[in-house]
């Protein structure tokens, strides 16, 4: 259902019918008021009622006729286009593998097929498809469209195609669109930007310096999830951009999204930047930094004390992340701390503590066994028992006995 052909026409038609019907209703109400006040006779009112009824019947007939015809035409057009795209995909795939030459002057369906091939292929064939996109002048035309003042739909379609083609030359234009008034355009531009940057092969080849990309991204009014997604889409090329976003002037939202993206991409080289943020005044940033450490499996030096402090935080999410990070601390020490956390008021913290004990190896296993039977807190006992059962380290031969213990 993505921006279908003929959509504007149908929407405009439906809108006009709504407006006309509302006007008819307003008119009818006015005539009733007039009748109620004795300004017009019954005959006058009746004439108005007949007029509105006939008008509505005409609307319905016309609307039905036009809509059904339009739908039929759209359906035929889309079916023909799909067939043509299928044909061109076959043709171009053959050319990619054999003659390695693109037929000149590709029609619209051929261009769509080429974009689709560029998106789905990888390696040498994908690069060849990109060269064909450039040779055909498609890249220039797409950039022209995203730069133009044309309708939002045209721009959005062009952005979608740029994202598919992963055009490095479109990066400056995409950065410009991150400042667009329309949130829709900004979001689509961010997605396309992520894909285009991911395709850059070397740092020297960037059409815009990474620091500039960071600056514009940091200032763009993007939702946290979209910023994170854009950075993740950049894949291995995201490191410098994220490093630029971790500066002291970045907002909490930008910091959190950047740290999350760094964690998802396992960018361990950013540890120097992100490790420091563990003591950022904002708990959301603290939590994101610890989550980053958990994802890359490394803790910065001196983090143990910070974690110990956060274990007592009133914020559940911070305690959960801190408990998880204890898996990277000396097992003896961690096991002691986890024995306390396993009696936490939050189920999630308790569960995280039990899972962390599991990761500590023999020491953790012993602690788990001990806590399952002898921990003074019944919730702690339950959590440990559940984990032992889940992992098959304990058999629940007698469920009744088990439940009573729990």
């Amino acid at each position, binding site marked *: *259902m993505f921006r279908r052909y003929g959509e504007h026409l149908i929407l405009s038609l439906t809108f006009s019918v709504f407006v006309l019907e509302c006007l008819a209703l307003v008119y009818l109400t006015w005539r009733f008021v007039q009748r109620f006040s004795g300004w017009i006779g019954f005959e006058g009112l009746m004439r108005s009622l007949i007029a509105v009824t006939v008008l509505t019947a005409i609307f319905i007939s016309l609307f039905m006729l036009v809509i059904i015809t339009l739908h039929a035409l759209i359906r035929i057009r889309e079916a023909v286009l799909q067939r043509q795209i299928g044909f061109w995909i076959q043709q171009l795939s053959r050319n990619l593998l054999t003659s390695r030459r693109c037929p000149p002057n590709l029609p619209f369906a051929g261009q769509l097929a080429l974009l689709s091939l560029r998106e789905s292929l990888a390696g040498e064939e994908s690069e060849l498809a990109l060269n064909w996109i450039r040779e055909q002048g498609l890249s220039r035309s797409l950039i022209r469209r995203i730069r133009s003042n044309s309708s939002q739909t045209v721009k959005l379609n062009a952005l979608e195609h740029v994202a598919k083609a992963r055009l490095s030359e479109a990066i400056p234009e995409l950065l410009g669109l991150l400042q667009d008034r329309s949130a829709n355009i900004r979001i689509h531009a961010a997605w396309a930007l992520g894909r285009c940057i991911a395709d850059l092969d070397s740092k020297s080849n960037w059409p815009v310096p990474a620091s500039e990309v960071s600056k514009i991204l940091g200032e763009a009014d993007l939702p946290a999830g979209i910023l994170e997604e854009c950075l993740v889409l950049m894949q291995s090329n995201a490191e410098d951009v994220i490093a630029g976003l971790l500066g002291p002037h970045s907002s909490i939202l930008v910091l959190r999204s950047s740290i999350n993206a760094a964690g998802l991409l396992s960018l361990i080289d950013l540890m120097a930047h992100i490790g420091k943020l563990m003591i950022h005044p904002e708990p959301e940033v603290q939590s994101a930094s610890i989550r980053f450490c958990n994802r890359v499996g490394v803790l910065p030096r001196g983090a143990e004390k910070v974690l110990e402090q956060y274990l007592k935080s009133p914020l559940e999410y911070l305690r959960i992340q801190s408990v998880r990070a204890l898996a990277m601390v000396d097992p003896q020490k961690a096991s002691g701390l986890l024995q306390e956390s396993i009696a936490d008021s939050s189920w999630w913290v308790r569960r995280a503590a039990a899972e962390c004990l599991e990761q500590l190896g023999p020491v953790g296993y012993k602690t788990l066994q001990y806590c399952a039977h002898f921990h003074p807190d019944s919730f702690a006992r339950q959590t440990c028992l559940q984990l032992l059962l889940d992992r098959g380290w304990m058999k629940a031969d007698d469920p009744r006995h088990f439940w009573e213990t729990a």
Partner: protein
Amino acid sequence: MNDLWHQLALFFQYFVIAYFALVNMTHAWLGYMGLRTLARYTRSISETSLKDLLERDIYKPISILVPAYNEEATIVNSVQSFLGLHYPEFEVVVVADGPTDRTVQTLIEAFGLVEEPRIWRQALPTQAVRRVLRSPAFPNLLVVDKENGGKADALNAGINFSRFPLVCAVDADSLLDAQALLRASRLFLEDEQVMAVGGTIRPLNGSEVVRGWVRQLKLPKSWIERFQVLEYARAFFSGRAGWSAIDALLIISGAFGLFRRTSVLEVGGYKTDTVGEDMELVVRLHRHFRERKIPYRMLFTPDPICWTEVPSDMRTLRRQRNRWQRGLWETLWTHRIMLFNPRYGKLGMLAVPYYWFVEWFSPVIELLGYVMIPFFLITGTLSQDFALMFLGLAVLYGVLLSQISIAMETQMMQSYTRLRERLILFATAFLEFVGYRQIITFERFVATFQVWRKRGEWGTMTRKGFKPATLEAPIEQEEKDAKQLQESK
């Protein structure tokens, strides 16, 4: 005396006319707003970004909660459909709410479930859990067998067992579109203020279902089911899409709704003493956030589609509508403080009054009209021509609204595109006014006065299941084709 009677009759007639104009203008306005929502939505969605969401680690895991009472006819197909969804990480929590048929047994046989001792967090109080079953073949399937406590209680139990930050409540007799979760969950990712998202529900009666997937959408054969196709199109594309456009969505259907788990827990989960638990939860969430001045959004999104089996016989349908009407009243009454209360913004000043005076009150007015018009005609206080013409106009307005909704659905969702189906739907829009609408109005009218007597009562829902004949036939055909292909090779 005669003069007084005449004045009263006139007053009633003018009241009905004013009510008619107001209701139809509201519907036209809602339709227009719905149209805007659809237009915006079609522009915003990107197929490439959905693919990226599926391929990369940027998503929020989801727990699908499936409360099941006596659902042995449909449960396996539904669970198969849920397990086959295109989503990177999710779990399916089926809560068997003390069924009296073979629902649990059917699930055990179909998915090879085994009992699992389990300790869970009783975040919400529920009826006792008898056992927890897990499938070794499908690690993301969990079946909770519990004492009967009603749908809301089963959903609360599902929330207790869910592990993920988003919970998706679905009906056991429903099937989800393959990309439904991807599209709905994207909204939570894009905007952190989004607390709940509702999708479109579409009747699947008559369609071909293969292994839990809707293979071909077809119009149902019986008129009762066809009438409901129209009703659903109107309710979702003109109603909910419209309210969502002005951030005043009061209903997220129980058949498919996504919520942030923490929000649901914050408000205490589903309320168990109402039959309109879906609407009640949404209204309570609205109140919770508004009263605490927490910025939030609850959205309707047209594309995530849930297919549901609608009642195919009048008896079941009447029970369902009776329950819906009672559920509506229970919710409105519980939250009556919101009515015309500016503290709740558009909700208090527009949405809640609409539900009071249009959704709840309209059956009373309509039925009174049906009773009074013949009476007025007999007593000569109403012109016959006028009455007929007015009735004709009312029917035409209804038809127009139905046609616009169907046009929106066909254009956006590419459904019922065949000319024959469109013509049948056109005829259905007219035929709806010959008997069907009156029966439903009568049932809703009756329900209005049964709210206290039948409090919390659901009534039995009869299910046919997802067309078993068409379910098997294509599979057999596929196998036959494969065999023929092999032989020809």
